[in-house]
């Protein structure tokens, strides 16, 4: 129980930190009154602008504004979108299904590609397939998603014209953003699977299994892979949070109608309450998934629970 409380408190600290950053954004980008009003100030007198400042509460000390922000946020009230004329929280939740769909595709893609590739690399280390997989993994981990996305668009969208470049609607629309989003997890999981398997392949129980005449396939899949899965499962779990949060760039590049694109659009249109709601929601998802993984892990491995 102490472990659970400790992890819960740690997650709350993370969310608290994010809330400070999200709140601070409103001020880091300039005078919030001017930023929100934008060109409308051309039509307003100085006193009207001041009136708006008071109405919005921007004339109050920052800590009072922050306390009010947190107080409202815990009740799900992140303010009202100036642009969409609906609660900021609702603007974000409306877009969440599209983000979850894309993240799920990327998640499945990462599993389907990375684990078999990692297993094959581990079975035949330093052979051509392993070398190719190593290069692919290195590329996947080092190529930034915005660059990979543009490259895919150039090749499959502009040059070959095989896939739609942006938007959603058909299964083809998932291909390029899915690959872009999955590239990093594929690379990481592939390397993790390979190293974890190579590690277990040296263990005594594997040698014993082989000595007992068990088939190589059974040794690899039933003994080595099964035992290697522990760190992989942890990593994969954490990836869900990464995929949901990391979709901001991918969604923007591919015009995917999800939370990430909404946040970027809200930044562009100075719709700060939506930005705050989106950032905090993504932080909550990330912290929530992390917490869940930690708790699950502690159930599987009691050493963690007891602080060993």
């Amino acid at each position, binding site marked *: 129980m102490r472990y659970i409380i400790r992890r819960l408190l740690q997650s709350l600290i993370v969310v608290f930190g994010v809330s400070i950053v999200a709140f601070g954004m409103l001020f*880091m*980008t*300039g*005078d919030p*009154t*001017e*930023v929100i*009003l934008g*060109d*409308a*100030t*051309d*039509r*307003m*007198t*100085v*006193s*009207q*602008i001041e009136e708006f400042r008071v109405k919005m509460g921007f004339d109050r000390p920052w800590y009072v504004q922050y306390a009010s922000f947190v107080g409202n946020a815990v009740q799900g009230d992140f303010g009202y979108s100036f*642009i*969409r*004329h609906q609660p900021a929280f609702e603007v974000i939740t409306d*877009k969440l299904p*599209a983000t979850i769909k894309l993240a799920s595709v990327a998640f499945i893609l990462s599993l389907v590609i990375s684990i078999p590739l990692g297993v094959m690399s581990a079975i035949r280390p330093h052979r051509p397939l392993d070398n190719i997989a190593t290069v692919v993994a290195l590329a996947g981990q080092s190529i930034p998603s915005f660059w990979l996305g*543009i490259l895919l*668009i*150039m090749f499959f*969208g*502009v040059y*070959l*014209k*095989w*896939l*739609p*470049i*942006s*938007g*959603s*609607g*058909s*299964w*083809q*629309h998932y*291909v390029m953003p899915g690959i872009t989003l999955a590239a990093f997890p594929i690379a990481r999981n592939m390397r993790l699977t390979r190293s974890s398997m190579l590690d277990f392949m040296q263990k005594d129980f594997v040698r014993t299994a082989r000595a007992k005449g068990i088939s190589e396939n059974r040794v690899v899949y039933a003994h080595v892979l099964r035992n290697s899965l522990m760190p992989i499962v942890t990593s994969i779990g954490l990836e869900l949070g990464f995929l949901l949060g990391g979709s901001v760039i991918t969604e*923007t*590049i*591919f*015009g*995917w*109608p999800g939370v990430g*694109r909404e946040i*970027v*659009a809200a930044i*562009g*249109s100075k719709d700060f309450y939506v930005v705050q709601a989106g950032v905090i929601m993504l932080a909550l998802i990330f912290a929530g998934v992390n917490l869940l993984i930690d708790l699950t892990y502690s159930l599987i491995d009691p050493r963690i629970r007891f602080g060993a």
Partner: protein
Amino acid sequence: MKNPHLFRASVLALGLTVSALGGGHATAASRPVVFLNSAEPVSLDPMFTQADANVILSIHETLFRLDNKGDVVAALAESIKMIDPLNWEIKIRPGLVFQNGEPINADAAVFTFDRAKTLFAAGKGDLTFALGALKYDHMEKVDDLTVKLVMTVPDPIITSHMVNPELSLLPPKYYTQNPPEKVAFAPVGAGGYKFVSYKPGEGLVLKAFDKYRTGKPPVDDVIVKAVPEVATRISEIKAGSADLMVGVPADLKQDLENAGAKVIVAPSYRRLFVAIKQGRNPALADVRVRQAMNHAVNCEEIAQVLLGGMAKCSIDLVNAPNQDASLKPYAFDPGKAKELLTAAGWVPGADGVRAKDGVRLSLNFDTTNGSYLMDKEIAQVMADSWKDVGIEIADLRVIDNSVSSQMRAKQGAGYRDLMNSSSGPDYTCQGDLLLVQKASGSNRMSWVDDKFEQMFKAFNQEFDQTKWKAMCDAAQAYVAEQAPVVWMFTEPTFYGVSKRLDYEARPDGRVYLNLVLKGVKD
């Protein structure tokens, strides 16, 4: 790869599979015209958005609107007559219908203007701008095709204030019988395009309305799709899967043209200038110093060398059609600049920097970086130009774009002596002149001039159109002479257009589909 044929065959097979399973792309010949917007629409209810004017005025129609030249023309209205300064009679064109068949008549106009008032009073919708411009009390039905608009203040440019999309006429039955949440994305209007469907990510599908007041628009089917990333929009145009985008970066113009698309470079209404802050450095209160600063800068050369000749030097404070076209920008004349400075008492010191009563003519210049085309580089050239006539830029500071808005607050209270800035498109003489009006929030120079204030007040009360235009011209000429800013140029707009689309750019940068799409050749 041991067998290169195997690789090629695999790639081909993958491609064929993708195409076969999904049916591939529709061919260009069967495709509707695709217009790429940078954001999804906020609402298609004209009273709930200012951000979607392009689609709103493609689906809806106002009583008066701006044509492609920027002139105010009668749209659903047939004529307007002033009864007295507070009462106007508007005749509606006969025989017109909304896209659902409801008649366009006095009832529709009264319903629309009442709805706007009611929403605004309830703090709903996005009507601050429109109702801030058109200050009416109410609208009354006179007969089936005539209404009376009762104003709260006299307004000599009432028709200019009726062009705002928020005041598009709405069919009363449809908008009364359906809740706001439904009509927000299932609009019915009187514009050139009928709403067919909308889904985020897939786009807004529109079809030409055959009973539109000027006849069916030349392009039948249009999809407005949101693609936030400019590089992706350019890729769509290059791939031929989209036909139109606004805001092609100048450095990608050639790239797009090489791919077979057209790039239309059209002048815009956005004016760029360097704001001269009053109240900090007393030297800048002297009109001769400000005029000298204008004469010292070679705008034409900057436009040619740094902007590839795509910007137009101007001294325009007011947009067409109210602009005084006879006004000429300050000529590049360093000799004249030096004369003016000497006449103002600023004499060159040993290092070339002018001084007066022991005080050096030394200014601070803040520039944005990337807010406008080549802004940082242009600021450097301007600083050098002023140095040549004896004005020192002690500190040329490049500030982050996000900080510039903070500095602009409270009439430019955060500015130092000089700052590059811009003024957006307006459609009225008054709206444009607000840049230098005493109480206006957009007067970031804090420039206050009693003579100008009197001129501004007087022409705001003038109803005689001939006199009014002359007064607007006089105000422009006076401000040009007083040089509260260093005038630079109007920034061009770059449109990426597919080869098959015939497009007419507007100076206000708007993409009203029924007006700008002139045809498509498949």
